[in-house]
């Protein structure tokens, strides 16, 4: 009789073919190793080149930092600090000279007696401040006189000058007295005039600010 028995462990697939595939596997691994080595060398060269390209900007950055530090040290010197303080003072004064039309109109309206009303208001820049022109109408001369006294008493206005006087003869202004006068506004700037978004009529004055440039 024929038997097909065997108690020996049959070799696994790996054991059967490991020797056969060892050489091709080694060759493939060697090829992969060469490719990886080539890639590594190429990447290393690219890294070196990028590193060299980075040297110049880094040197420039260091120089700029050193210049900034020098400028900062210059600003720390006493004479520079005095100049800085002067510039800040001038800028603050300029800020104080800024006039808001709405704030000015409110201030003028506060000076008007009940019998008078503000007909026109204009601001003109002059060498020594803001020159304000009023046109006020009143039911009688007493009201206009009261207004003039109020302007004279106000600390915000100086050099009050009474201009032309007219009498209304037609329409709604019939019987009213209209007077045109000027005064120099020396009162509070925008900071004290409350919050408003209206542009300052003396925007150009900002151009004269002493800038903190060195």
């Amino acid at each position, binding site marked *: *009789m024929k038997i097909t028995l065997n*108690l020996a462990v049959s070799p696994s697939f790996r054991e059967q073919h490991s020797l056969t595939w060892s050489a091709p596997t080694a060759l493939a691994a060697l090829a992969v190793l060469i490719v990886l080595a080539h890639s590594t060398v190429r990447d290393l060269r690219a890294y070196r080149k990028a590193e060299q390209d980075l040297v110049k900007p880094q040197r420039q950055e260091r120089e700029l930092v050193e210049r900034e530090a020098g400028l900062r040290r210059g600003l720390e010197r006493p004479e520079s600090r005095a100049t800085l303080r002067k510039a800040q003072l001038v800028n603050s004064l300029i800020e104080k000279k800024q006039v808001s039309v709405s704030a000015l109109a409110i201030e003028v309206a506060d000076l008007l007696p009940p019998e008078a009303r503000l007909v026109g208001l204009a601001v003109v820049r002059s060498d020594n401040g803001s020159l304000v022109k009023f046109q006020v109408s009143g039911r009688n001369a007493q009201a206009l006189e009261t207004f003039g006294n109020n302007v004279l008493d106000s600390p915000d206005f100086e050099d009050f000058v009474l201009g032309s006087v007219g009498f209304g003869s037609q329409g709604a202004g019939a019987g009213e007295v209209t007077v045109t006068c000027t005064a120099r506004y020396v009162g509070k700037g925008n900071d004290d005039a409350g919050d408003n978004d209206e542009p300052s009529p003396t925007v150009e004055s900002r151009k004269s600010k002493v800038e903190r440039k060195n």
Partner: protein
Amino acid sequence: MGDRDGRAGLLVSDGAVRVAVLSFETVPDKRPELDSLVRWRMKENLPFSPEEARLSYQVSPTRSGGSAGFEALVLAARGSVLSEYEAALEGADGRLILPATAALLPLLPQESAVGQLLVNLCSGWITSVVVWGDRVSFWRTREMVEREPREQAQVVATEVARVCASARDHLQVEVPRVWLCVRPPTSDDFASEVGRAVGQEVRLLAPPVEVGASLPSAERTPFERFGAPLAGLLMNSS
């Protein structure tokens, strides 16, 4: 045993291997399921855990005339024991491990519908195998403690008588042929004495002449004395 190609085979003592003939009504188609089933059925024949066993089996349909189903001749040995044996074959390819008696089975003549009994006496173990046609129907191995040839012949005769009776009663197989293989080889008187004791002819199983014919005369003699299992393996592979 080995050859010039580096292939080697190992014949282990029958006492190191448990052999059983298992019957199945059906067998699974998938090999892993069949492995698990055979391992589970072998549990009652093993003195150790089935998970420690290394199994080998061959399945064949139940002999005609009997109930329909399958029979499996199963070899089982503890894996750790076989590993120790295998250490001697380190570096050899094409390993083959069998119990010594299994290697003798191809030497039995092909006789269909005739029961044959093979008794192998070797290394202190006596193994009895009943073969019916081309399949093994019975396998039993027991230790032989007797050392004197006369005592051994008596034990063999008793074993032959018991096995023949058991085959007749349980397998419904008559066993007209009894083959005896004794190693170290003994005289023909040993077989005659056993034959007289059991009342039937007992023949010594010897390797075919043609297998050892190509060997030099100096090697032919030891081959004829000890080479029966090797001859069986050669015939099995041819």
